[in-house]
């Protein structure tokens, strides 16, 4: 079994049996691109932590890199997470509301 087949199998496992969409060459390559883009842009964004502390930046980049490598096909999960169902959207909206309020309230008072 070569690497490509392994990737296809892994994506199929995560998408589950319920998704009847065929896994084509095109969809696999776009999934891979998305995966690489996601991980690399998050890693580059983490480098911005150097403003706070350099050691923290190095630790964070290494930890996230390791975590991403272990949990490798992130993108199918991400796609499942950002689906169109009302409940998922509402959950993230509530989460965002809580985060925004907390950040503004505590973040600015304790800077």
């Amino acid at each position, binding site marked *: 079994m070569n690497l490509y087949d392994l990737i296809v199998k892994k994506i199929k496992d995560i998408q589950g049996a319920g998704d009847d969409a065929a896994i084509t060459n095109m969809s696999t390559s776009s999934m891979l691109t998305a995966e690489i883009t996601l991980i690399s842009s998050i890693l580059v964004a983490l480098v911005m932590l150097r403003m706070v502390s350099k050691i923290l930046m190095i630790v964070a980049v290494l930890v996230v890199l390791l975590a991403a490598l272990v949990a490798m096909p992130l993108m199918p999960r991400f796609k499942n997470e950002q689906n169109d*169902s009302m409940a998922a959207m509402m959950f993230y909206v509530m989460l965002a509301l809580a985060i925004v309020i907390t950040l503004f309230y505590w973040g600015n008072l304790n800077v």
Partner: protein
Amino acid sequence: MVIDVQIASLFTAVSLIIIGIFAAAFLDNLIKKVIGLAFIGDGVNLFLIAMGYKPGGIVYIYLPGMAAEWFSQNAAYPLPFAMVLTSIVIGASTMAVMLGIIIVLYKKRGSLSAKEILGE
């Protein structure tokens, strides 16, 4: 001890908002969800009104014979009240559109459950 009317109204407003958000997030029936959204709107309106209230003040109508300075110190602040008038009407019209969509969806799908209609 008696709590201040203004503070108590603000708490009422906040509890209405929280009840509304709870209903919109957790209840499954679409009409119940919309009722919750109506409460969020009501709560925000009450919050605005409570902000314009002046304890021991008078209604902001300038009658002949009132001294201007006395009036300006004792009248409630009318700006939020004017805003609430608009906001009530906007809320009611939004509600009407949502209920219209719900009726159409019920005719199409025969259900009022958010899980069924607004799922993936």
